[in-house]
């Protein structure tokens, strides 16, 4: 959809904008993971009340009554949030927001402008390239699982897996930190997902692996097939291979992770 720039208006933040900004952020990031879904309270804290941010450093872009984009820029030159409505002329919105960002950052004496974006956002990439930005990988991120059975349960429930029959998978984990459960079961069936703390007498599939391998599998940094082929995951009976593979694949969160600068803290 093409709209001329003149259809859009820009202004700095006014109290009461929060609802529209939070809605736009959560809608536009619905297909990504790794970020903190915004509430008005959280947005006010991570953007508005940040010691680096002035109300004049928040630019809101509108088309008629609708908020179609915004940028939150700190006096340090950090773009804490930049968000646009992809249903409108996104290139115009992003170009306008970034051009304003550069002007604002210079006016407050910043030495640089730094922005985080989703890697596959070709539009932001194109605009940044046009504006002579350099690209670099983000700060490396690390995660550690504290309650693996519960985390598995949350993921499986969210994905509503459909394995053919009632199935119990019993996990025996090695190289497990002391705060984690080493042995537990996951029961999948028509009545949903449940976690078992004690072994059950019915037939089950036992999966043995190292905790870091399982976490890497769950977060997609390790391939399920490769882990099985290279014996990083052991299981028995062997003929349950397809079910084990299916379970591990369901557990994998394949949604790409995007970390806005505002969430880094």
């Amino acid at each position, binding site marked *: 959809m093409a709209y001329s720039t003149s259809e859009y208006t820009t202004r700095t933040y006014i109290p009461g904008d929060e609802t529209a900004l939070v809605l736009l952020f959560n809608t536009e990031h619905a297909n990504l993971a790794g970020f903190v879904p915004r509430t008005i309270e959280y947005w006010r804290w991570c953007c508005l009340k940040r010691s680096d941010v002035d109300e004049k450093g928040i630019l809101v872009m509108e088309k008629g009554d609708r908020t179609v984009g915004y940028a939150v820029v700190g006096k340090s030159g950090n773009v804490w949030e930049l968000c646009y409505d992809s249903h409108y002329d996104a290139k115009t919105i992003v170009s306008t927001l970034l051009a304003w960002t550069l002007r604002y950052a210079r006016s407050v004496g910043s030495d640089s402008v730094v922005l985080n974006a989703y890697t596959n956002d070709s539009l932001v990439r194109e605009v940044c390239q046009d504006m002579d930005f350099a690209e670099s990988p983000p700060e490396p991120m690390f995660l550690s699982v504290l309650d693996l059975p519960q985390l598995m349960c949350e993921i499986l429930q969210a994905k509503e897996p459909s394995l053919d029959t009632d199935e119990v998978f019993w996990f025996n984990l090695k190289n497990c930190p002391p705060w984690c459960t080493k042995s537990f079961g996951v029961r999948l069936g028509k009545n949903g997902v449940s976690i078992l703390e004690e072994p059950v007498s019915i037939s089950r599939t036992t999966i043995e692996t190292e905790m870091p391998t399982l976490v890497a599998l769950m977060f997609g940094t390790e391939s399920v097939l490769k882990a099985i082929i290279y014996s990083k995951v052991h299981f028995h009976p062997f003929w349950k291979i397809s079910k084990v593979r299916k379970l591990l694949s369901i557990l994998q969160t394949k949604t790409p992770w995007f*970390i806005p600068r505002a969430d880094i803290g």
Partner: protein
Amino acid sequence: MLDEGRYLRCSYREFRDGDEVAIEELLKNSFPRFKESNLWFWKYKLNPSFDPSLLVVAEKDGEIVGCNYWLLRDLKLSGNAQVKVALGADVAVHPKHRGCGIGTELMRYPRLSGAFKEKGILMSYMFGRLELTKRLYEPAAGYVVAPNCTITYKKLFNCRQLKERFQQIDQAVKSNEETKKKLKNLAMCVSFKLKGAPEFAVHIEPARVYLEEGEAENPDVIIEGNLPLSFLIVGGTIGVSDLVKVWFTGKVKIRKGLVHIFKIRKAFKVFQTALNYKSQITRTPK
């Protein structure tokens, strides 16, 4: 187990009222960004989910010598899955007590004390340095590298920070006769034309090193490339093989004076050593 809350003559406990000044002071000494006014107050006390049980301090003889803070939040994992997590932030240890395992214990404390479990926190995440994964993050707290599809775009308006760095290098070089000797055969002018940054040149002379903003008149070498990669060269943290690799892949172009590539690498390595030496001298308590 928690080793009864004690490790290397330090005791570990949760934050309590009255700790504010000591923690802020510790953070300001560990992370320059905390010198910015009100950053501590905003990040800790203004945070709507601030929880004193998620701010752990290490105490030695009644003095706070370390702290680690966790920000409680909901994180989206995929479509409908959203879980309670803790973002590990600001692991700070007083310079006098670094390397004694205090950071490790700070990271472990809420895991072992049950503070995370009580709050229903299923995961913890943090930002850090890749080279510390196997040495610290994984053995201390079971951290693994997380998937990340984020990219950072950067544009420099001026070379102020780089100039400051080269002033530090210059001071380090001037205060070390050994370094001066090493630089004797490495004199040259390297011009940098980097994407996302203004043009600048680094002048390496036996007696001094300085950065000049703008185009150099007659540089010995011209380096063109992407800002972060070239910064690795400037910082002396890129290896010879990396240097050859980025040159072969075209990420860094050397327009003039290709023969000097190893000379440049050597010079920046000398700078790094000089800086490290100076910081060691500064840190050594009298």
